[in-house]
């Protein structure tokens, strides 16, 4: 790019001034991305400002008020203990997003590390990828169940289990882009100039692998929120009375005939979060890396 500009200075000058933030502009023109941002934004706001939005303690029991349907007094109704469903669902949003974020963070860290090592150092590739293959041979939820069942129920353990399950998938994507980038001429140039492996990886290879990674991490966020709900539905997430969307649905299941809203509302919140994140991921993929298609 730089040499081309030098060779044709007149054209470079004649070109229209570059707009700032071209990616952001294209994202803002992507309608579904905006819908996703709105949906996820609502959940994120609820999670961030949970303490201002909640008037009633999510665990305050008031048997007198049990099974109140959604209405003006109780926005989302009450459950079998007369606890405010609004408080519980909003508090659940906080935990769900925190867990999703934790998994994404660990994924970004270990997925990039393993993927970069495997893609860059051919000697490590085979060993690392066979280990990743072995982890990926297990269905996602089943392995997460196995790990949380061993470690014991709880939010932290759910984060560890989900990170362990999704990291090989992220590593594979990072490796695939590293394999492409490492063959580029500018990497050869950097090597010829005597740059160290660490410098080449951090300064030249990884920045060019960011697009697929960001897209992947958005989807991982969505999957983790969903999988955490499954784990806590099965009793492997945060333990009651701490409200999570999964355990509210599990408790509500017993009263699904007389009080369907207990199950309905956290499910809708969950669907909204996942849908929002999926739309964000689709939009990012379209804009950042159109070559990528639906990937797992």
């Amino acid at each position, binding site marked *: 790019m730089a040499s081309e500009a030098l060779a044709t200075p007149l054209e470079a000058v004649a070109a229209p001034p570059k707009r700032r933030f071209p990616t952001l502009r294209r994202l803002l023109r992507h309608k579904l991305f905006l819908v996703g941002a709105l949906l996820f934004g609502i959940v994120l706001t609820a999670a961030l400002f949970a303490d201002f939005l909640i008037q009633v303690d999510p665990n305050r029991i008031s048997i007198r008020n049990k099974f109140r349907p959604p209405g003006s007094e109780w926005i989302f109704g009450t459950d079998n203990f007369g606890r405010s469903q609004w408080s519980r669902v909003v508090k659940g949003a906080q935990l769900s997003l925190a867990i999703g974020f934790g998994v994404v963070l660990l994924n970004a860290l270990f997925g990039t590390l393993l993927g970069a090592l495997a893609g860059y150092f051919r000697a490590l590739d085979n060993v690392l990828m066979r280990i990743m293959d072995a982890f990926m041979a297990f269905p996602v939820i089943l392995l997460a169940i196995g790990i949380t069942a061993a470690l014991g129920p709880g939010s932290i353990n759910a984060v560890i289990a989900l990170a362990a399950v999704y990291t090989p998938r992220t590593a594979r994507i990072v490796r695939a882009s590293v394999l492409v980038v490492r063959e580029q001429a500018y990497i050869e140039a950097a090597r010829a100039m005597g740059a160290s492996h660490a410098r080449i990886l951090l300064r030249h290879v990884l920045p060019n692998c960011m697009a697929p990674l960001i897209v992947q991490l958005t989807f991982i966020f969505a999957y983790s929120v969903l999988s955490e709900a499954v784990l806590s539905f099965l009793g492997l997430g945060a333990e009651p009375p701490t409200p999570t969307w999964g355990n509210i649905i599990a408790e509500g299941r017993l009263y699904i005939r007389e009080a369907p809203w207990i199950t309905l509302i956290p*499910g809708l919140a969950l669907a909204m979060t996942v849908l929002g994140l999926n739309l964000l991921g689709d939009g990012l993929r379209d804009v950042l890396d159109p070559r990528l298609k639906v990937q797992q």
Partner: protein
Amino acid sequence: MLRYVAHRLLASIPVLFLVTLISFSLMQLVPGDPAILIAGLQATPEEVERVRRQLGLDQPFHVQLISWYAHLLRGDLGSSLLLGRDVLEVILERLPVSFSIALYALALTVGVGLLAGILAALRQNSWVDQLVMTVALLGVSLPNFWLALMFIVLFAVQLGWLPSGGYVDFREDFWGWLRATTLPAVSLAMLQMGLLARITRSTMLEVLRQDYIRTARAKGLPNHLVVGKHALKNVMIPVVTVLGIVLSLLLSGSVVIETIFSIPGIGSLLGSSILRRDYPVIQGGLLFVATMLLLLNLVVDLVYAWLDPRIRYGHGE
């Protein structure tokens, strides 16, 4: 081809070995003394000791590992702590149940997902496309266990069309089986249908832009031949590769779905073993499922290579 088969078979051996190692390691993750956890807090020291001996936890690590492999080679996955029966026996007994539902869900996935994806691609940007893509997006976003509960409320409680749970053996009463498994299969298939519809649509759109399609149209072939013969064949290639993922997702979903619909399959077996800390069943179940998936993926890969010679000759990277 033979070389490719040999290569793939050899390559799957270390993965299979690692899968068994991961399954074994699960037990090592249990914090504290697993024997006390399993036996329960009320257990007497003798009972704890009995559990410890039964699981071989009194042995040093390497002895446990060797005995795990020695048993595996004999096809022995240990015995359930609660059922007091052989794990493999229990799994095999429940296999036809889970397998029949998985097949049903797979048929729905391929039938509906593929068709919807092709339809959406052929009518790109029309209302059909928009509808299919919206439903597909909902399919990949709605949690399947929640969807299952909503289906129960609607189709079993309100409308009374289908039973809210239970299982009927297909060898005894096919219609009963179909009635009992429709809601579980649809809840299980939603995610995969959405996924497959999305992949099929984008692949189809790409294929339709290829030169050979233009050639086929230029030589005057009718549309149904262009789509049905020339395009479809090439769409199938990526679709076959995602079948492994689809199967894996089906098995993932089965734990919750079988639990919700009280279906006596492998999924609900695992679901009930979790809370009772029946570790041999969890370990054995996981290992069994992963091994099955590895074998299925191997078969898919071989079929794929047989269909597409480029894979056979170009393998490696």
